[in-house]
């Protein structure tokens, strides 16, 4: 029975990670080998594809795309924490807006993003936020808010209220209390939420596709340009290498922090 479980586990891991594994293997084959040998076996491993990415930097600036993804994801995730943390505290301790604001934001998760995408595009075009990292980050913040708010509210609810009361007796104001007592205690929760928000923001595609064209293009959109721009003859090896580099940051975070991410996702799903 245990052997059977291991077999099922292996099949599940291989099937679910199938596209990533195949792409990783392809990225180490030369273009000639890709055309002749599509299997999982690599005859002559090479790093030529990874060097090839930088040879086309004038048309396809991978470092620029990676930087855009990084900057807008950090900014978007950070901003959502900045907005959600005080609000979550007020909701949990003073019940401010717990009846309407929390459900409203939590339910945003269920609304197709495209509903807001068109008007935001039109507004952005007027105020000059199109194709900027800041404009994209503001939207990534919205995308992250539902999960971030639910997770922070849940973790703040688990902190003992006695600490707050003790600090109140000592004469602390709400803001001093939040800064000196609650923030340090909530740091682990904030860190996990930040990582999760970063991964979600990094992987976002629809808004990045609509709102960026050149300067603020992220790596998910950049990789898709790669397919379109090369017309009929896609350079599969280089494309594979680009995709590997694009999935690396969130995957490494996922492998390192799988336990915390898993707990957060489970909590977010049940409470949201």
């Amino acid at each position, binding site marked *: 029975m245990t052997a059977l479980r291991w077999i099922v586990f292996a099949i599940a891991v291989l099937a679910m990670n199938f596209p990533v594994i195949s792409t990783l293997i392809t990225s180490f084959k030369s273009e000639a080998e890709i055309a002749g040998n599509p299997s999982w076996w690599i005859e002559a491993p090479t790093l030529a594809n990874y060097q090839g990415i930088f040879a086309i930097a004038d048309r396809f600036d991978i470092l620029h795309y990676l930087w855009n993804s990084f900057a807008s994801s950090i900014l978007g995730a950070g901003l959502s924490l900045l907005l959600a943390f005080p609000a979550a505290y007020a909701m949990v301790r003073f019940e401010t807006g717990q009846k309407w604001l929390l459900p409203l934001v939590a339910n945003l998760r269920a609304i197709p993003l495209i509903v807001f995408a068109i008007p935001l595009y039109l507004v952005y075009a007027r105020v000059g936020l199109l194709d900027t990292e800041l404009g994209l980050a503001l939207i990534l913040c919205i995308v992250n808010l539902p999960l971030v708010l639910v997770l922070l509210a849940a973790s703040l609810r688990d902190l003992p209220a006695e600490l707050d009361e003790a600090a109140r007796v000592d004469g602390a104001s709400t803001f001093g209390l939040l800064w000196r007592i609650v923030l340090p205690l909530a740091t682990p929760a904030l860190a996990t939420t930040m990582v999760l928000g970063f991964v979600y923001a990094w992987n976002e595609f629809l808004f990045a596709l609509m709102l960026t064209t050149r300067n603020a293009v992220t790596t*998910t959109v950049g990789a898709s340009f790669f397919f379109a721009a090369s017309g009929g003859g896609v350079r599969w090896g280089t494309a594979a290498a680009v995709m590997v580099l694009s999935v690396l940051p969130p995957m490494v975070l996922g492998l390192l922090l799988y336990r915390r991410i898993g707990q957060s996702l489970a909590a977010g799903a049940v409470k949201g």
Partner: protein
Amino acid sequence: MQCALARDGRILVAPLTIFLLAMLGLPLVVDLIYSVSAVEFATILSPEFVGLANYASALSSESFWRAAWFSLRFGLLCATAQVLIGLFLAIFLEPLLARRPWLMAFLMLPMMVAPALVGLMYRLVLHEFVGVVPWFMFTYVGDSPSFLGPDNAFKTLVVVEVLQWTPFALLILYSAYVSIPADVREAAAIDGAGTWRRLVSIDLPLMGPAIGATFFIRFIDSFRVFDNVYTLTGAGAGGSTATMSIWVYEAFFKSGDIGRAVAASMLLLAASWLVLSVVHRLSQRRAGASA
């Protein structure tokens, strides 16, 4: 004192509220105005009121209904498959995962990959000449179907979506399964209930809320899908794989049909609201029944 706390609470909530009003409230107003106006990119600031013509135009469009039907079928099928496979894996693999929690990391990995990139990766994997799947089919089966052709595109997309997001169902259902108290199961075992009996009478009912929540989340995410379908097949031949999100996107960017696209997105919003309120009603009734 109470009054001061309420004031502090409002101050703490204010930034979030203002941000939401600017980023969601304003777009919603724009949505509402343009959905009842005749407007083009050139006349974007002077919309002309046309009543419900845009809604009528969207609702009378055959491709709109085909996209709606596609998304609905896609959402239901994917959510069902993900919950069933996730449930099986969660329960069957529990003895392995309980002893070696790090195994879960490999099952969670697909969730860390951008769906848009997964779509692009399958363009490589399923490619007739350089893809490993057609190669395998040609070598060992003798023939390979055209996975992204009109006949198979829907099935292929379902498999792609299910393989990537079953981990989510597995994760939620696994944590629900392991949080069932051991003494409940032991008591049932002492009463002579076998493995299957315990599964059907104890485990599954206790996991009910988690199963419901997982199905709902997966349905919503698959229903509104954009990224992987867009990068893998686009709208497909003759719009055969256009989801609701892709239909709205193309109406806006490809056809420049702003009023129609916005009217369709308002309909989409209304539909999501309807689903949400039904689910809310259901979960409250269950909470009421168990209390």
